[in-house]
């Protein structure tokens, strides 16, 4: 990255450095020892034994990550176990899977997905390690290749000073080290602050994030959730402009699902080092198209040299194209 020579803001994309996606497992441990930004792993890259933390800012983020996690499991012969917080009927707890094309009723009936409101009980965290050990063995006994556990952590069960939570997470480590199980512990960052989450990083193998929308040698495109949009890292040129076009198209659909008219799309460009005229023109035409239906394309954190390019072409004055400020999101991991 330094080779390309662009300066990266300390916050990184969406407050994290997407560059950490590129870390291998060995490097993740090094990063942990140095106590820097926790390593990020795309959910699609998770392997058996992984015990990752998801700090999420929006329900869409949690649902996107957990859905990928469980659906990947169904596709690879794992059983999915959802340890839910509340005493919700299983079908209701899994509606976010239904909307992503999963026949939830069938999967529940076949036992490929199970929901256990265990964490919702007052003693939920006390024997979590035992529950996961038992369920993993049961899944293997039932002929599955492994178990995927999705755990939503509730504030109420965390104990004074999160002591109960720490002890519980600590006890999970040997389970993940010895059995074919992988898990995601979900923490709502609107409830747990960064100061509380930081020590918990040491009890996980890193943090998990949604899969990248695109990655090649030059460019990573990630989905952001709070606020929703896309973040671009690297360079866009003639070789990968099509990937950007495709990502914009999918993002438009995602935004339309949120609001029918006045669709606004936000691109975080703080980590964009280079964009050529052809790719900028794509953004201009996307903005013009959004504008016809009352929408806007917001470019956030555009570097001065890219702003200059936009001035020279007159693309700084396009209806439907707005330049946002590049401030770091509140609550970002730095």
């Amino acid at each position: 990255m330094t080779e390309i020579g662009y300066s990266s803001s300390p916050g990184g994309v969406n407050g994290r450095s997407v560059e950490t996606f590129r870390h291998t497992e060995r490097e993740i441990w090094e990063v942990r020892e140095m106590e820097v930004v926790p390593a990020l792993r795309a959910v699609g890259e998770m392997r058996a034994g992984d015990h990752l933390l998801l700090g999420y800012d929006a329900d869409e983020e949690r649902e996107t990550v957990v859905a990928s996690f469980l659906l990947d499991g169904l596709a690879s012969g794992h059983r999915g176990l959802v340890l839910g917080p509340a005493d919700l009927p299983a079908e209701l707890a899994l509606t976010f899977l239904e909307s992503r094309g999963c026949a939830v009723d069938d999967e529940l009936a076949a036992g490929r997905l199970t929901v256990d409101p265990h964490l919702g009980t007052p003693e939920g965290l006390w024997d979590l390690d035992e529950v996961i050990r038992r369920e993993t063995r049961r899944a293997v006994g039932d002929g599955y290749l492994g178990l995927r556990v999705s755990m939503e952590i509730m504030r109420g069960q965390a104990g004074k000073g999160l002591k109960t939570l720490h002890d519980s997470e600590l006890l999970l480590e040997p389970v993940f080290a010895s059995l074919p199980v992988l898990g995601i512990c979900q923490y709502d960052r609107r409830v747990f602050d960064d100061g509380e989450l930081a020590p918990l990083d040491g009890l996980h193998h890193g943090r998990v994030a949604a899969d990248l929308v695109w990655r090649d040698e030059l460019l990573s495109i990630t989905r952001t959730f709070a606020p929703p949009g896309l973040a671009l890292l690297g360079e866009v040129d003639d070789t990968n402009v099509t990937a950007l076009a495709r990502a914009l198209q999918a993002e438009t659909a995602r935004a339309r699902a949120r609001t029918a008219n006045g669709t606004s799309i936000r691109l975080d460009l703080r980590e964009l080092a280079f964009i050529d005229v052809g790719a900028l023109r794509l953004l201009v035409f996307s903005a013009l198209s959004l504008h016809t239906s009352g929408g806007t394309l917001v470019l956030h954190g555009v570097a001065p040299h890219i702003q200059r390019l936009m001035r020279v072409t007159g693309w700084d004055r396009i209806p439907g194209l707005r330049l946002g400020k590049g401030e770091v999101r509140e609550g970002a991991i730095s």
Partner: protein
Amino acid sequence: MTRPGFVHQALCYGSDEDFLGGAAPFALDGLHAGDTVLAVLAPRNIGLLTRALGRRSCEVEFVRADDWYGCPSRTLGRYHAYCAERGTDGAGRPSRVRIIGEPVWQGRTELETRAWMRYESLVNVAFAGTGHRLLCPYDTRVLPAAVVRSVTRTHPELALGAGGTTPSDRYADPADFCAECDAAEPGELPAGRDDIPFGRDRSAHVRHALRSYARALGVPEQRTHDMVAAVHEVVVNSVRHGGGRGVLRLRNDREYVICEVCDIGAVKPTTPVPPFPGHLPPDRRAVRGHGMWVVRQLSDLLTETFDPAGSIVRLYFKRAVTV
């Protein structure tokens, strides 16, 4: 003086009286007609015209020529932006801009002089169809003879003093004049070994090599960004229209970093080269044409030969410049 259409006159003067005899009535006529009047002049001529106009001088916007005439393509872009901004009145009706513009010729190399002559000819194309008026003073006492000779070829009209004008019978079609400028040999490239071959899907490699080269020469970061953006567009053009591959030669002399992009030429040209490529500001919503405009706006000088057998585009970036 209510003639429609763009007016581009040269005022060749050999004395202060001659200068004021042409420039003062031009400015005053404009003020009477309610035009925006801009005077881009050498400091001495700013003083002369200010005194001659008296209290009306405060209605004229004065700019020092050195600050305005930095490099031809950017000056053209600047005039264009100026006229676009002030070319309509509050109600959106077209309003006329009058400019007294005296390019800087002293201290220019032969290459630069040729580019400025071409600029004077291109003005006729860039502002054709507008109602603006441009008067270009030429000081015959100090300017090289070749520069003075070019005046009648690049200006359709010559100012005679006291407001009178005559058509130039030597005026050349801008396409022909520019072709003549382009045909002149750009000169030997300085010696060097930084030749970077390029082809499809290799533009990132080219940008990387260029960044390293610029860094080693101490080019400021912002200027390096401009260089990378401009050269990238030329390289992409070459890949698309010039046979798919070529070589980027990176050189430098005391004044310029020079980036020469040569391609092997297209077997069958895909699209004809548009007239005056990149010289005229493209419409913001156009589907093409922004690349070469950006190239010219970001570089300081550019020479090109578009040839089916292989095109050569040479971009010059001043080594010490603040843009």
